């Protein structure tokens, strides 16, 4: 019994890391990153490939984060010139292209075969191989990341992020290099997602390109929209809520013939929730349209 709940807990912890990254980007700074899953995938593949090549867990994790950050830095150069929905769309494209690369560059990623046998984490000789250890170790990381992001959000830096979300033009008019700040935000969010991806890979020990679809981004989007007014804490809490909800459906006594409807019905519910939350205005998730500079 406990192991199953621990598994849900670990899944929730991983999704929480992923969603908190997106909350920092969308919720705090207004960066509509519809390709967040790409960073999840890059972190997962990088850490898996490195540790399969024989590097110790901590080294591959560290390098994976470095790679995730580096890739974000690079793609940020062109894509961060875009704003609002255009940025979102370009990131959506980036996410899809990344998945295609995982799928097609089989020399590196083994393509659709996926990567089996990813080593479990081990810290200085202490093996993380049982569920309680996973739950505790990942839990500590979640708390750390949560505290760090909360620290950022409440700091002068977070103040700039909020300013950019409220009115980017105005922020640049008071001397803020908004491109630079958005980049810092995107990289930080990407690192959280990359960490989540790497932890997911070392936990499940098998990854394949089909794990990194738009659906994961939409799930995180739903989580942060649900988290609404409560910022990063909201994202953390609603991650566990949404994962619990998904798993909870397993226990409802649906008739057998209904089985094949569960997945689409669940997606329908997600869609409906998004629409309803938007219609009822999710507080400070998104500001109303700012008055435009008119001529």
């Amino acid at each position, binding site marked *: 019994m406990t192991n199953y709940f621990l598994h849900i807990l670990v899944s929730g912890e991983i999704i929480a890391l992923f969603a908190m990254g997106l909350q920092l980007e969308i919720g705090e700074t*207004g960066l*509509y990153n519809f390709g967040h899953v790409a960073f999840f995938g890059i972190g997962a593949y990088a850490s898996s490939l490195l540790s399969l090549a024989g590097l110790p867990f901590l080294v591959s994790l560290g390098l994976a984060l470095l790679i995730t950050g580096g890739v974000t830095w690079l793609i940020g150069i*062109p*894509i961060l*010139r*875009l*704003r*609002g*929905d*255009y940025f*979102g*769309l*370009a990131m*959506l*494209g*980036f996410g*899809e*292209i990344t998945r*295609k690369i995982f*799928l*097609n560059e089989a020399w590196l990623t083994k393509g659709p075969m996926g990567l089996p046998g990813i080593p479990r984490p081990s810290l200085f000789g202490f093996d993380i191989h049982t569920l309680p250890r996973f739950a505790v170790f990942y839990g500590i990381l979640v708390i750390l990341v949560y505290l760090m992001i909360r620290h950022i959000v409440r700091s002068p830096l977070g103040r700039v992020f909020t300013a950019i979300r409220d009115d980017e*033009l105005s922020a640049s008019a008071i001397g803020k290099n908004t491109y630079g700040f958005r980049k810092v935000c995107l990289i930080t969010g990407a690192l959280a997602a990359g960490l989540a991806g790497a932890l997911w890979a070392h936990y499940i020990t098998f990854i394949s390109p089909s794990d990194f679809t*738009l659906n994961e981004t*939409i799930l995180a*989007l739903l989580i942060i*929209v649900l988290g609404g007014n409560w910022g990063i804490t909201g994202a953390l809490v609603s991650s566990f809520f949404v994962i619990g909800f998904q798993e909870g459906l397993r226990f409802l006594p649906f008739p057998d013939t209904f089985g*094949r*409807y569960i997945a*689409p*019905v669940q*997606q*329908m519910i*997600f*869609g*409906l*929730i*998004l*629409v309803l939350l*938007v*219609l009822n*205005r999710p507080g400070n998730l*998104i*500001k*109303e*349209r700012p008055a*435009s*500079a*008119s*001529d």
Partner: protein
Amino acid sequence: MTIFFQSLLDGLIAGSIYALFAAGLTLVYGTLHFINFAHGELIMAGAFLAYLFMMPPLLLSPLLSGIFAVTGVVLLALLMDKTVFSRLRNANPLLLLIASLGLSLLLQNLAQVLWGAKIRAFPFPLQRGKVFGPVVITSVQITILWVAALTIFLLYLFLKFSRIGKAVRGVADNPVLAKTFGVESEKIIRIVWVVAAILAAVGGILVAADTNLEPHMGIVNLVRAFAAVLIGGAGNVWGALIGGFIIGLSENLGVLLLPIGYKDAIAFFIIILILLFRPEGLFGTRWGVR
């Protein structure tokens, strides 16, 4: 060489359909200023409704099924506007974007619940294509080409010569102009939905006739349509039409250069390239501090 001409033809057929999607999407984007993810589901709905009318028990003719399907999609679009988008007229475009994403999820999965995930085909008899020199074309594809051409021609007449059509194009093309229409703007928005829905439904039926249909066909076509919109410049109908052809051609010719596994990513590549080098689109003129 054969493969080049065949790809060119396939690109033209696909392009003529994408042009329809893009023209509708750009009108909505120009008028309401948000990326309507649910536009893909209008496309899907067109294809599915036509399919349902053609199959037992109704067994209507393709033409009649098409007309009913288009009507159905127009009603669906107006319903979406009434229940969701009209309540967000002055909201941040990103809120509308998320709402349309939610609608899209809702509708495509509803379709899956109702009809299952499997790939379906219109009940047309299987035929060898006709050979014209280096290219092969089926009779269905010939029909597709002239239906698309006719639709584009009618759209041209509407936007160019009718009073309301001119107003629609004006508003879509120039946001500042929208203010001068004042009270009339709600009416114009409704017309835009009707036109966009017709274009999406006709295109959806054609794309299903050319290939096949399934509940999640919307998103792929939406991405292509949006790439075309960007080529044309947001709100520019003629640009979007040309953009549709460019996307159709580059997808089909691009695989001669790129590994074939990246075919579906080509539209994304184009989107990113255009956004980077000419955010206002190849034919677009956008002004004002956004």
